[in-house]
């Protein structure tokens, strides 16, 4: 009886999981399929799922029309650059919040999180003007700075949660053993928190890779990453669904591959240490 029951619920849960995953994945699948259609089939009133003339034309068109590899390289520099710079700032910040708590630490953490609740448009004008005055518009450096700032609260929070799991006494032991604060972080904290730091880095690379508000506004031609490359197919000459889809696929494939190979790490990171 008991096993029968748990078998049944196992089947239900599995079906549910597949159903939800299917729902989430369907738009991506549709994009993938559309990228192999002709423009005419892409906007057809009764679209077919698989029965169409498969073509690679969109991909060759897109590659011929835009400098894909430039955009790709910009995306790499911006996402990895901002994540690394963010780590350099977030590690000491999270260290102090996790291990040198004061009465105000909790408030500070909440305040940092609250900046994520602010609509980015709220600071659009000042940031745009500052970028103009510092000549950072359409530069990779400018984008790295903005992406770092945008993701910093998440990085500090994630690292803070990880650091909290590390027994305080181990760090104190290193202090007794003659470590300066830098040595304590470098020799003891970082090796112990390595899985957490890796997850933080990965998640932020993905977030920065997919970010499309600031990247679209602050770049033109030189520093435009793949998000701007996708967007360029949605405007001036009208909509080209098939090419837009091909561009989207080319933009998300690198990050999907990264995500695929690091999924174990990511799941662990995103469960915020809840599962040990």
């Amino acid at each position, binding site marked *: 009886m008991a096993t029968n029951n748990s078998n049944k619920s196992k089947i239900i849960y599995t079906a549910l999981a597949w159903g939800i995953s299917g729902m989430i994945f369907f738009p991506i699948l549709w994009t993938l399929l559309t990228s192999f259609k002709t423009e005419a089939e892409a906007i057809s009133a009764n679209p077919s799922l698989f029965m169409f003339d498969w073509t690679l034309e969109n991909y060759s068109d897109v590659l011929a029309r835009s400098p894909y590899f430039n955009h790709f390289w910009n995306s790499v520099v911006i996402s990895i650059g901002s994540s690394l710079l963010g780590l350099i700032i977030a590690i000491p910040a999270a260290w102090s919040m996790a291990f040198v708590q004061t009465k105000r630490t909790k408030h500070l953490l909440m305040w940092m999180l609250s900046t994520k609740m602010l609509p980015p448009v709220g600071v659009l004008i000042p940031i745009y003007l500052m970028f103009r005055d510092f000549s950072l518009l359409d530069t990779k450096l400018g984008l790295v700075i903005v992406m770092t700032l945008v993701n910093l609260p998440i990085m500090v929070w994630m690292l803070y949660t990880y650091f909290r799991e590390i027994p305080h006494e*181990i760090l104190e032991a290193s202090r*007794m*053993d003659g*470590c300066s604060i830098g040595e304590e972080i470098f*020799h003891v904290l970082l090796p112990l928190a390595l899985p957490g730091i890796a997850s933080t880095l990965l998640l932020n690379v993905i977030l920065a890779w997919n970010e499309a508000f600031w990247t679209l506004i602050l770049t033109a031609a030189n520093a435009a990453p793949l998000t701007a490359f996708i967007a360029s197919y949605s405007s001036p000459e009208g909509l080209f669904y098939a090419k837009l889809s091909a561009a989207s696929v080319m933009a998300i494939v690198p990050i999907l591959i990264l995500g695929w190979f690091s999924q174990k790490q990511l799941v662990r990171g995103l469960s915020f240490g809840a599962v040990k």
Partner: protein
Amino acid sequence: MGSITLKQVTKTFGDVNVIKPIDLQIHDGEFIVFVGPSGCGKSTLLRMIAGLEDTTSGNIDIDGKDATNTPPAKRGLAMVFQSYALYPHMSVRNNIAFPLKRAKVPPAEIEAKIASAAKILNLGDYLDRKPGQLSGGQRQRVAIGRAIVRQPSAFLFDEPLSNLDASLRVNMRLEISELHKTLDTTMIYVTHDQVEAMTMADRIAVFNAGVIEQVGTPLELYQTPVNRFVAGFIGSPKMNFIEVEPVDGNPTSCVGVRPEHLKVTQDKGLWTGKVGVIEHLGSETFLHIHVDGVGPLTLKADGDCPLKYGDNVNLTAPQNKIMHFDAAGKTLPPTPFSGN
């Protein structure tokens, strides 16, 4: 060298005054134990000596120099934590080498020191394992090994044995005492276990709610406790306390008799009671005796005590073993006691 002087040291967390002003002189080479019930501030004071907590007011001198604001790394002290606090990502060898590497000791010398620590602590077979692959006792040895290689001027232990099982605890207790004799270095040892304190200490400081009630050798504390708290804390089983009505000219409000001084007598005695639960330990017997108007008293008898549950007995104690306390719990000079 390892003499430590605490001068009017205090500690507050927020509004809570955890350490009231404490003065204490710890001599070079002595084994001093901080003992007291849990939550009384022993660990906090030890951590202040280590430099892991800052001192709210007062001064801590180490070897005659003010170290109140010196960072832990610069105090020349070594600490063994209750949780051992080994570096889980390093082998035993690297755990022990860590403080030496930080001190930029030459590699050849590091090797020699690891070898000698491994020999003293029987760690030879485990040097290349990770802490996670060791038993509690072995981890404890590694933690001690990491402490001794630095040749600190004093060792600080915070309840180092409380995570070990009973038999191992007795062994490690002996090993630490032995180590103290070999190294001849100051050791400050925190525990809530008065047996550990009595067996290991040169001197004991008895803590209670952020103050030191008394400092003295184990026998001084046992024989001449300054107050009821110390009298009750030191000794096992605990001293029996009997409330008495204060009479004119005699401020005694309570008398204390240790279980080992309470005797069954054929005469009238001081108290009469009925034998309750009897605990046979083989070498000795603990009798719990219900005395009307006084409550339960514990009596420590020989191993072959013939009394049975329910027997009526008369109890007495030698006058010089009966301690007198006033209403505030302070020990009074002995006066003759003739029962309630």
